[in-house]
């Protein structure tokens, strides 16, 4: 039946959660950094490329969950893209496996300026359970790419990752 269904859809509350406020200190720290880099204004929008540098995939699961209606990334002007050439932000998860270093560096080179790198998770920050192994870069993703922001956690919740991205957005608008 169409009418009951329509009525249900009309009355259903939106699936999206309330917006978490970004941390004021993070915003302030980033504002200073971004001011220097953001010569070209992008407006309040960022295109995000997800990059897995070799890990369990847990951080990637939580980052991808941001696209689900509960977080609804796009209402903030954030969206996931498929190529570094379309991206403003490289969101890197994983332990920075040495076998991925060249791919990460090439993706960064292919990303147009201005660009930002966000490391998500303890592994990407160089402090995860794989740190110190022959197969991963010492110091995590920061050893390969210039980091702008670090979201800790193993894995961090989608809300925390979103907070990081929103902080970047705020800083960029200032």
């Amino acid at each position, binding site marked *: 039946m169409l009418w009951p269904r329509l009525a249900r859809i009309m009355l259903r509350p939106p699936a999206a959660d309330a917006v978490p406020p970004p941390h004021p200190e993070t915003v302030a720290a980033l504002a200073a950094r971004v001011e220097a880099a953001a010569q070209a204004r992008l407006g309040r929008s960022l295109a995000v490329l997800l990059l*897995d*540098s*070799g*890990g369990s*995939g847990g951080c990637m699961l939580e980052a991808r969950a941001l696209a*689900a209606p509960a977080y609804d990334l796009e209402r903030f002007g954030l969206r996931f893209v498929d190529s570094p050439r379309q991206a403003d932000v490289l969101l890197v998860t994983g332990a920075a496996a040495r076998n*991925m270093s060249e791919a990460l560096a090439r993706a960064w080179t292919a990303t147009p300026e201005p660009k930002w790198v966000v490391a998500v998770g303890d592994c990407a920050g160089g402090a995860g359970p794989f740190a110190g*192994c022959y197969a991963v870069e010492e110091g995590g993703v920061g050893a390969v790419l210039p980091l702008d922001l670090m979201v800790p956690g193993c*894995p961090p919740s989608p809300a925390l990752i979103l907070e990081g991205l929103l902080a970047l957005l705020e800083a960029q608008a200032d």
Partner: protein
Amino acid sequence: MSAASRLIRTAPEAAPGHHWLDAAGWAALPAALAADPALEFWGLWAEPGRVHAAFRDGISLLLASLEVPEGRYPALSPARPAAAWFERMVADLWGLAAEGGTDSRPWLDHGRWPATAPLSDHPGHQTGEPPQPVFLPLEGQGLHQYPLGPILPGAGPGHWRAHVRGEAVHRLEARLGYGHRGLLGLMRGKSPRAAARLVARLSAEATVAHGWAFAQAAEAAAGIEAPPRAVLLRLVLAEWERLACHLSDWGGTMGAIGLEWAQVRCAMLREKLLRAHEAAFGQRLPLDLVLPGGLASDLTPEGAEALLAALAALEEDLPTLQAVQDEHAGAQDRLRGIGGVSPARVAALAAGGVAGRAGGRNFDARRDMPYQPYPGFSLAIPTASSGDAEARLRLRLRELPESLGLIRAALARLEPGPVLVPLPVGAGEGVGVVEGPRGEVLHWLALDEAGLIRAAFARDPGWMHVPLLEAAVPGTTLGDLPLVRASLNPSTSGMDL
């Protein structure tokens, strides 16, 4: 008993089901395996000076080992195609060569580590620039190569190279190892409890399955059993993980054919599951919950209620998902006959999980290599024989109500009690097999006198799904590649170790 299994079983037994073959015995193994297709090959790994192979013989696991003082052993890949990936891994990590193997190219070692053969007793020194990868040659006129990855949206790191003529794909080849982070090396010399943190991070979507199989192996080595409450809660966690993984795989494949609202619906359902999981166990993803000896934490007081409420919400939506699967003409058109693999190929690769059961391999470790607490529960395991993307998706959906029922039954049987017992210190070895969301997971470990890990191996079902995907793609078009990949969704992080 078949010839190959007799050959292994007549060799001296080191532990139950674990036999040490002599050089002549192992040399006879490839021919015996070729003559006996029923003995399933499950994995091959090494430690310095030794190689180990795992097979399934009916309801039991059979381990065959060989001392390799010369650093060479006869290859199994001529008789079991899936062994090629393992032989290449053994060469990359331990420097042991498979003589007569079908493929000797490195795949884990990209020439970017400080050492070669990092897990051998005498690692070499890596010198020079990383070598260019060697790919399979183009066979035929008018073919060209279409490279994908290692950076792929929605998938773990991996390079996929398709040989195409126009739109038609003639061959797909995987080059993996981009995500190698040295898990096996890091596990050595750690206690099982400490190593569990690494095992949990082998593949996040199957973290309970890996943790449980590893815990089974450690508990077998130490000669203890987890308390009954922990065992029941492990079932709850494992089935919860299966629900979440099936929803995201089913939704992801629907997204790949353009039915994005079905994908979004699944993402919402999955999010509800994760939030209920957080209410019940204090964290969204089940990492680090399963430990050797039991569980790291118990269900919260209001946890069972939150889990049951989420299950009720999921159950309400199942008919909608089922209607898409059964009645959406577009979906049927796009899925049917795509990415099919013959039952013979599925059996030869012993591909696990839904991918195997959709192609006639009627195996589920919960029923066919039973472990506690599954023998006390009734469980229907749907199968199909067409082996295509449609069958894989149909089975994923059919398994959801089964997991739902198992969780409810297990929660109803929970009795108060401890969830963790101490692990005695001592030497030993053990194996564990658990049916994960994408197929059976195998863990083996050997402990030294101090109770620390001397050697260990973890086999994710992805090891068999990557060759299955390579076999499933020829004959389809380039446009269907994402769909076929999503329908199998092999875990490269589980394979890259």
